[in-house]
């Protein structure tokens, strides 16, 4: 495009910038202008270049930009680069053509030389610049505002997301906490019901042993009274069933003792060879009944006397061999013992019981030692038993310090084995346990026995058994301790058989009273309890020995013979004296961790509870003292019972335990002296706790 100065001047005249300028002057300016052509995208000038010219767009269009950021678009008839008219400085923006564009370029010097006679034009230029700057500023501000809004919105969205995430996390935490509490609660309940179960089982089996005593004893008496042949069959069956029932009861009692951690092993001389012989002798008839072989293999290197618990070792082996016979239909059962390690002071023995029975799958073998579990659900129906035998055996082996294991294959048989270490004895032979011989019974001829027993049937069992076996025995029977004390004042006996638990006056108190005037007469306890602390109580009150109920003849007569003719207690292994754990040691320090945790560290509440505790001690301590000195044990029991949970809250665990022991001691009417001693210690602990926490605020 070729433009004449006249045409250009006409164009200038149309523009705001030049509208006040006369045409001839514009024509002169036009002649000083250069025409430039730019292609699309071509740069007119770059940002930061020094500029000294004003551009007028004659044709086409440009964009004003900073790199990619476009500030404005301008079309034909407008101008740009006007800042260069004021100041020869760097361009603030770049400008490039967006299409084929023709520009008129007016140099700064030309502009002023032509227009210096028209100062008004400067005013116009400045005014326009100001306007344009304001527009640009407004646009920028607007853009900033929009960005800010966008940012705010983004922040809000993000914040909402974060809040949501936090809420979700909190919800999950609360859920986890609830689940944890639920689990904790269920665990506590399970533990509590487990405790109930243990106690229930122990009580039940204990309660059942007493009538069993009567059933077995009476059956024994009938068996010895020349029954008819048909009666004999029935009596045999009663006897066998009773024995089975007694075995089951004993197993339940054993497992509850084991699970309560109350089972202890004896340490006496034993002969492993004899135990194996006895096990086989006991079970041979059952193997014979099933027509299977039973054999024993005893390592010749086996020392003749070792130290351990013969009764429990025999129990384990009886159980394993009994099981093996039970589950074997053909072939046989082999009981073997091997010395696997021999040292100067002890030796390790491996016992193995192999059978050719039905065997077990690995899954069955894995659970066979669990309580109440048998290899399969119908085992109980088919083979009988409580399912406790193997579990008891496992625990007993563990008490011996060994482990039991099983190797089994379905259809081929099983091998149960365990290794235990037993110390060598200083003795070379095991002291013989004497059985009941005719000579022994003869030696008892004509003795006078007092039987103190509240249970009618047990009284009959005891007297009939004694009457049958001891020639010319004279038996007197009374129903409780008070009657026993009374009759002992006027009559003379060679021996007293004393039940422990009786109404009116129990056997312990009766023994103490009888001992006041007669220290020599042998008194044997008849007790269904085999717990050491119970037995210890019998010795403590002056009894000469004890016979477990239900008794078997050899134990009864053996004990009577031993105490009358050998002058020794029939059960020589005295249980170690009972130690009252809570009594040992010094007084106990207060520990506030529980109430701190309960209150979440709330000082005011902690102080309040301490004050309540101190107040409670202030009332109960003199209350207990008074009741104790009045001999009002029922009141002592009530007060101790009430304050017991408070000790636990103050972290006085041992004192709480002691309170429980005192409660039990009072309930069992233990010797007053013993109770007084424990209560004194309790009071000492209570005073110490008051000292620990200071006077009430």
């Amino acid at each position, binding site marked *: 495009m070729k433009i004449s100065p006249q045409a250009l001047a006409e164009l200038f005249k149309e523009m705001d910038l030049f509208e006040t300028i006369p045409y001839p002057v514009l024509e002169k300016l036009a002649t000083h202008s250069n025409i430039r052509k730019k292609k699309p995208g071509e740069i007119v000038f770059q940002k930061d270049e020094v500029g000294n010219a004003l551009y007028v767009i004659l044709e086409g269009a440009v964009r004003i930009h900073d790199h990619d950021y476009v500030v404005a678009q301008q079309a034909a008839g407008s101008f740009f680069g006007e800042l260069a008219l004021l100041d020869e400085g760097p361009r603030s923006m770049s400008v490039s053509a967006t299409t084929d564009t023709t520009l008129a370029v007016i140099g700064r010097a030309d502009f002023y030389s032509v227009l210096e006679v028209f100062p008004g034009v400067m005013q116009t230029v400045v005014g326009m610049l100001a306007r344009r700057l304001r527009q640009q500023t407004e646009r920028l501000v607007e853009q900033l505002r929009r960005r800010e809004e966008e940012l705010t919105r983004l922040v809000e969205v993000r914040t909402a997301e974060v809040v949501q995430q936090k809420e979700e996390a909190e919800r999950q935490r609360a859920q986890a906490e609830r689940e944890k509490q639920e689990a904790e609660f269920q665990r506590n309940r399970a533990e509590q019901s487990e405790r109930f179960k243990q*106690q229930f089982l122990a009580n039940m089996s204990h309660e059942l042993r007493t009538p069993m005593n009567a059933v077995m004893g009476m059956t024994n008496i009938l068996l010895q009274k020349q029954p008819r042949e048909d009666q004999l069959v029935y009596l045999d069956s009663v006897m066998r069933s009773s024995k089975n029932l007694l075995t089951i009861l004993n197993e339940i009692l054993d497992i509850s003792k084991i699970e309560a951690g109350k089972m202890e092993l004896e340490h006496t001389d034993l002969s492993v060879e004899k135990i194996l012989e006895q096990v086989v002798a006991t079970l041979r008839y059952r193997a014979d009944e099933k027509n299977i072989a039973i054999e024993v293999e005893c390592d010749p290197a086996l020392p003749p006397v070792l130290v351990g618990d013969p009764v429990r070792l025999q129990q384990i082996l009886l159980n394993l061999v009994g099981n093996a016979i039970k589950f074997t239909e053909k072939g046989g059962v082999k009981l073997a013992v091997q010395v696997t390690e021999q040292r100067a002071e002890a030796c390790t023995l491996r016992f193995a019981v192999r059978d050719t029975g039905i065997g077990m799958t690995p899954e069955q073998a894995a659970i066979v030692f669990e309580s109440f579990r048998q290899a399969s659900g119908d085992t109980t129906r088919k083979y009988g038993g409580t399912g406790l035998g193997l579990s008891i055996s496992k625990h007993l082996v563990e008490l011996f310090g060994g482990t039991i294991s099983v190797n089994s294959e379905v259809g081929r048989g099983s091998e149960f084995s365990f290794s235990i270490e037993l110390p060598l004895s200083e003795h070379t032979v095991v002291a013989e346990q004497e059985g009941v011989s005719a000579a022994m019974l003869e030696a008892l001829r004509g003795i006078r026995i007092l039987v103190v027993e509240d249970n009618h049937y047990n009284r009959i069992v005891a007297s009939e058994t004694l009457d049958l076996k001891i020639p010319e025995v004279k038996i007197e029977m009374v129903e409780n301790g008070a009657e026993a004390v009374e009759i002992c004042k006027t009559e003379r006996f060679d021996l007293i058989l004393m039940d422990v638990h009786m109404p009116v006056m129990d056997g312990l108190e009766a023994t103490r009273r009888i001992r006041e005037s007669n220290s020599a007469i042998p008194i044997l306890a008849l007790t269904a309890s085999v717990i050491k602390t119970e037995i210890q109580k019998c010795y403590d009150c002056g009894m000469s020995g004890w016979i477990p109920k239900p008794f078997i003849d050899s134990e009864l007569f053996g004990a009577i013979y031993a105490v009358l003719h050998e002058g020794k207690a029939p059960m020589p292994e005295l249980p170690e004296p009972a130690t009252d754990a809570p009594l040992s040691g010094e007084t106990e320090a207060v520990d506030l961790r529980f109430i701190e945790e309960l209150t979440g560290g709330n000082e005011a509440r902690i102080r*309040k*509870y301490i004050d309540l505790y101190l107040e409670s001690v202030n009332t109960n301590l003199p209350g207990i003292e008074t009741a104790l000195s009045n001999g009002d044990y029922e009141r002592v029991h009530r007060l101790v019972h009430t304050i017991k*949970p408070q000790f636990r809250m103050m972290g006085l665990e041992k004192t709480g335990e002691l309170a429980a022991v005192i409660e039990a001691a009072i309930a069992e009417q233990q010797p007053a002296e013993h109770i007084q001693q424990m209560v004194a210690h309790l009071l000492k602990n209570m005073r110490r706790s008051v000292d620990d926490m200071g006077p009430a605020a």
Partner: protein
Amino acid sequence: MNTGKKSVFLVDDDNMFLTMLTDHLEALERYNVSTFTTGEACMEQLGKKPDVIVLDYYLDSAVPGALNGMEILQRIKSVDPELKVVMLSSQEHYGIALQTIAKGALYYVIKDNQAFGEIEHLLSEIV
């Protein structure tokens, strides 16, 4: 006054335990707790229809001759067989627990340091 809170009666002659349990339950802000140191006092207020009663087994240490929890349990049940009762005791005997359950108690809580959490949980489940 209906605050939406459940009404709980606590009956125990052990003031310390009673206070601690009350504080513990009130802190949950879900229960209106009324406390009694004898069963007889609790019986007088049965007309207020509590949602649950937490009842101690022995109640005669502070007031000698006061009726024990077993007797109170039976009296409560004869007035309102549906009323929920949780028994509380430091008696750890199975037989006693069994007796209270047989006489209509819902649960039997042993008064040890776990009792607070256990009662909190029980209440959230049964009322």
